[in-house]
């Protein structure tokens, strides 16, 4: 089987209220610059927040202050507008540094369905960790200065499928462009998980690939392995029923996730 070539026309970075925008945009910008594509940002305002804020007992617990305060729809609207404006500034600054053409779109809905509905075959979809634990953890853990500027260790989930090849190809291209090392998390079994594929991609891109086997592809195991390997960006294949897999991964990994269709 010939090595898959990554053909990417746009990097779409998905932001929501849980996203660490600076961290994510920096990583996505570096990725787009390395792959010589444009950068598009999609800010998804969680529609459930408006409903929750309208409830009579609605309140909010500040993540930095640990203080409980009342929540009202108008306050949520204002906070979302402020967050979108902040993301625009961060995006503009990041794109400017990497000389990228960029756009920002704001949509209301649920993050994952909205983002996946937009995914086309020539886009890389970059997510921030959005699970509750990850969102809180992002506050706890100081973002690495190095990873915020330029990812140094890339990861790719390889399942031996065609989409897995595309994910690996995209990861190789990005790693080569960024001068990063690449860790392949091999989740496939049997013949599909032989070392030849990795060897081909390594030779084709000139990037040394470190292999870590995760039989069964448990998302918790993948998340643990990415943390252990110090992965800054994780490439995952957009498999059938991908919504479930991506959603599960997003809930547990703490680094940006690149979904390769």
């Amino acid at each position, binding site marked *: 089987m010939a090595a898959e070539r990554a053909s990417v026309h746009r990097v779409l970075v998905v932001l*929501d*209220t*849980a996203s660490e925008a600076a961290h994510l945009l920096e990583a996505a910008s570096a990725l787009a610059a390395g792959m010589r594509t444009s950068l598009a940002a999609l800010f998804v305002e*969680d529609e*459930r*927040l408006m*409903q*929750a*804020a*309208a*409830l*009579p*007992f*609605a*309140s*909010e*617990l*500040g*993540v*930095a202050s*640990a203080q*409980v305060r009342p*929540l009202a729809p108008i306050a*949520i609207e204002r*906070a*979302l507008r*402020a*967050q979108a404006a902040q993301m625009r500034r961060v995006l503009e*600054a990041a794109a400017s*540094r990497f000389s990228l053409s960029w756009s920002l779109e704001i949509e209301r809905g649920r993050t994952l369905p909205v983002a996946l509905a937009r995914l086309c075959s020539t886009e890389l979809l970059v997510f921030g960790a*959005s699970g*509750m*634990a*990850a*969102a*809180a*953890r992002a*506050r*706890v*853990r*100081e973002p690495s*200065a*190095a990873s915020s*500027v*330029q990812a140094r260790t890339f990861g790719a989930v390889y399942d031996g499928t065609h989409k897995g090849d595309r994910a690996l190809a995209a990861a190789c291209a990005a790693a080569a462009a960024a001068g990063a090392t690449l860790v392949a998390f091999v989740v496939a079994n049997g013949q599909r998980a032989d070392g030849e594929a990795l060897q081909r991609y390594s030779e084709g891109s000139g990037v040394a690939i470190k292999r870590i086997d995760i039989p069964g592809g448990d998302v918790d195991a993948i998340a*643990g392995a990415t*943390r*252990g*390997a*110090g992965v800054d960006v994780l490439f995952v294949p957009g498999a059938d029923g991908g919504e479930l897999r991506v959603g599960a991964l997003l809930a*547990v990994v*703490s680094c940006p996730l690149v979904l390769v269709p």
Partner: protein
Amino acid sequence: MNQTARASSIGKALSPDALVARCDPRSLGFATTQELPDLATIVGQQRASDAVELGIGIHRDGYNLFVMGPPGSGKHTLVQQVIAGRARAAATPEDWVYVNNFFEPHKPIAIALPAGQGQVLRRDMAQLVEELSATIPAVFESDEYSAKVGEIDTEFSERHDKAMNALAEEATRSDVALLRTPAGFSFAPLAKGEVLTPEEFQKLPEEDRERIEAKVGELQTKLEKLVREALRSRKERNQRVKALNREMVLLAVGHAVDELKVRYAGREKVVTYLDAVQRDVLENADDFRKREESGPPALRFAAARDEASLRRYEVNVIVDHGGDGGAPVVVADHPTFQHLVGRVDHIAQLGTLVTDFNLVKPGALHRANGGFLLVDAAKVLGQPFAYEGLKRALQRGEVRIESLGELYSLVATVSLEPEPIPIKLKVVMFGERYVYYLLCAYDPDFRKLFRIAADFEDEFDRTPETTRLYAELLATVARREALLPLDANAVARLVEHGSRIAGDAAKLSSHVDLAIELVGEADFLARKRGAEAIGGEDVAAAIAARRVRAGRIKERVAEAILRGTLLIDTTGATVGQVNGLTVFEIGGEWFGAPTRITATARLGEGEVIDVQREVQLGGAIHAKGVLILSSFLAARYSARHPHSLAASLVFEQTYGEVEGDSASLAELCALLSVLSDLPIRQTLAVTGSVNQLGEVQAIGGVTEKIEGFFDICRERGLTGEQGVIIPAFNVGHLMLREDVVEAAAAGRFHVYPVACVDEAIELLTGVPAGVLDPAAEAPAMTVNARVAARLREFATLRRGLAPPRGRANLRRKTHDGG
């Protein structure tokens, strides 16, 4: 001229030989100065030379040196010669460096190191930083470090994730969603996986609503606890990572620092400093990591700032004797306070002024420490606080760098307080005598700090030996300045000029700079005419040219006299009018000019009015001269009757202050003329002071005064009648110009020495003075007889005009009663 010769010439015109003390070129014993060796000593300054040797030689506190004397007398040359010898033989003092004080950064630490080791330590520290800049990032980039940090992060993340996930699951089980808001978290009830709208919620039974609210409240309390726990975890995680960082960095730093500590094992202060460096590196290892970064401008700026922070490991070498041998000799050309004691510079950074120990700059005291500091007293005293700063350093035995503004509470900014550096040095201060005497009088500390004074002479004896040394000095200068050699004639002319500058034919001026300047100018003239050596004519031309250059005022005065604007007669004879002589000093050049002095006499009560004094244009010495001649008149002529004279003396057409008593002889002669009614020869000019006994005393500037009158007479035409009367004691000072001597030799101009006023008045009036007997009687028709008669006449007249005794008594009574 000896005393016998002088006595024999009194009252008679001096022979041309007496007008100038020639230097015979043949007596010099060389053709050109090429034959002469370099002069190793200073001519004629033995006393000062001994004092300098003593001052430099004593190594005790307070034995600093004040060298005083006229400018150009070789003070600096002599001192530098003596010091150079001592400095070469002395041990090279230690280097001094300032390093950062990691505990109190505003108090940089001073460290002494063997000569040349300051730069070595600086390089060692630079190398250490370079090494750490490579090894520390490598430590942090290592797999080992990443793995350990990963372990810590995983431990904390897992602990937190587990709790969060459990909470999220509990919420889901209770049909409650945990939502992320822009600033935090919120809970919302679910129905079939979707958040309830407010309308749907309101439609629920009340007990369901209460249950949901209670559950949400319960979940919120748990979440709050979790978030607080997360905040605590962050602190704990940071401490764990910091401890890991220290552990990892210590491996890299400890080895490098230990190597340096072995190298500087004998230097306790350096070792202590290195320990402090190690502690600081461990605490601030991130500073080394951030240097590796590149990226957006904001981060690059931060990186630059971090790089600047590594300046704290640099070594500021303020005194470096690496390339020196022996003790330093520092000449403080511009001894301001800061140039003497050092300063702390500041640099502008983001609109504020900042500083650190690297900006501590040494002063002359630092550089001269262990050696010699040469300063000019006038310059030190002219600079605000410089003298005080110098004294303070010498008194304390240490130099403390202080900000003037802070020292005098002029500004309230916080600056550095570098550790004082102990000093041991010899200060040589140069200055004029009056500065020394003023400091002695007004500064009680001065004598304690400058115990040795070396006083340089203004002139020295002109002997064959000193003349020879003078020639050797000129030879040395010619060679040093790459000038043509001087032939014997040139040297002879310069020797004569040296006597002229000294104002004494038996002396030579110690202002050798003037002679050196003349040699330079004569060299120019000699080269212009293509000569291979500077000749006598070149020196004469250089002297003449110098005279012309400085002669503008003199020419204007002479012009005014010749055009009649200033009234000076050089022919005829007039009663009560005499040509006095004044001397001017402008810009270091001296010249003389005649001035008319007139006297009037009338009946009075014995007072002689000095008009100059009355209008406050006469100095104290001049007033004293007038009082003396007044006393002389009273004592000589009115011993037995009331001195009933009222006289006025005026320096005609003078518009500035007259000082000195050198005109008192002329003033007395004018008075005698008016009292005797005998006219004074205007062909003569007079200079000299008199005492109460009528003896004529020496005055200054005699050569210039004679030449001043000669120039006027020459312009009007020398008649053979003209000349100048001078004190006999000044004959030995004469160093007249060649043209004056030639005129005297030709009998067209004369210089008359006189020892007493009678000799002068005889020359001026052509009438014998006459010897007074104890009754103040003199032979008839003599000057003294006529003066005595006139004064007796005044006394008689006064007695006739006196009021009756009774009325006088009545008036006195009234006065007493009042």
